[in-house]
């Protein structure tokens, strides 16, 4: 007989497994770091995983889904379904602290804590630190960077450009 605790253990083990699935654009981050895996639901032999997209048009989501399915199939899970859930809307608040640290080590500035959505014209997000030299003397070059989720900044001290993962 399957106990609830068995199911719980299974759910936890799947969450751990999913740490192996990385964001194709930012390979140091796993889907768990990003906070896009919202739920793992096991009923009988079926597994349903709820994921939520960062930005609606994010082209990486299709790849991420395939990677998740491939990984689980390769381990032997057969009946796996991935469902996209758009509500509640993804927010950078769901990114793990370790994820933010990995971003910085990779050269991308992590989303600021407690940052509100910057909405007024010509308003800038405050205190974006350069991931290389930590200076907060940084300048936004463009609202949209190499991907929809990132903005392009330049450090005014060490002069290096860097991507900033925008608060969303």
């Amino acid at each position, binding site marked *: 007989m399957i106990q609830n605790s068995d199911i719980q253990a299974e759910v936890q083990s799947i969450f751990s497994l999913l740490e192996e699935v990385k964001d194709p654009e930012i390979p140091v981050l796993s889907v768990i770091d990003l906070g896009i895996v919202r739920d793992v639901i096991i009923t009988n032999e079926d597994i349903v995983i709820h994921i939520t*997209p960062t*930005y*609606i*048009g*994010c*082209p990486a989501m299709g790849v991420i889904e395939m990677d998740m399915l491939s990984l689980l199939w390769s381990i032997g899970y057969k009946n796996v379904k991935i469902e996209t859930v*758009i*509500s*509640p*809307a993804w927010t950078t608040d769901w990114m793990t602290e370790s994820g933010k640290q990995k971003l910085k080590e990779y050269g991308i500035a992590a989303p600021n804590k407690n940052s509100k*959505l*910057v*909405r*007024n*014209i*010509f*308003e800038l997000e405050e205190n974006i630190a350069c991931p290389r030299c930590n200076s907060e003397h940084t300048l936004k*070059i*463009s*609202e*949209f*960077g*190499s*991907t*929809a989720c990132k903005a*392009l900044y330049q450090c005014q001290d060490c002069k290096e450009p860097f991507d900033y993962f925008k608060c*969303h």
Partner: protein
Amino acid sequence: MGIDKNLISSLFVHADTALIHGQRLGELCGHGPVLEQDIALTNISLDYIGRARLYYDLISKLEGNNKTEDDYAFHRIESEFKNLLLVEYPNKDFAYTVAKQFFIDVFYYHFFLQCIESKNQEIISISQKSLKETVYHKKWSSEWIIRLGDGTDISHQKMQNAVADLWMYVGEMFVPTEFEQAAIKENLMADLLPIKSLWEAEVKDIFSIAGIKQAENNWAQSGGKEGNHTEYMGYILSEMQYIPRTYPNMIW
């Protein structure tokens, strides 16, 4: 429970507007005025296409016919599309691109703000997600209206010309069709009349900072929401639908 044709048609207006606008923005890939804005425009395009996908998904669910987003995007003809005429207008220059973007961003900002109160949960979800992105888009386009309007004499003139040429297409956003009226009455979709005053106030604000004069003639072209499109639409669809129509049933 019957199929709510009014709601479906109303959703098509916004699905198709998002798709066609995303397509027009996609044309600029590699052709932006400077690299960072090329990237900005294509990112905005992605957001809009993503939004179209969400709407088509919902429409498919409501129609209950197992159609996919590809069926709706690539296998419908001109008269079946219900997008706003404004988004068909070509990107004559960067000022036109910015003006078009600004006009629909301000509209959609207020539209989604209202739609998050819809009686339909899925519409609420789509609207919450889209609202976040629209905040960025509106910031981007408002800033560019100001930079160009209050820029050099040349940029000011080009911005002024773009606004003048596009002005006759903005009215359509605020005049509900019969099917939209029905959906509004059921508290499913946003009421367009209050959005009009909010839109006018916000546009006036940004224009005054930018030094741009509004046209005085308020005659509005219409018909897009009923499948009567500008001549540009045929070309847009030929390009967008070319591959799926030429090689139907092809799979990757």
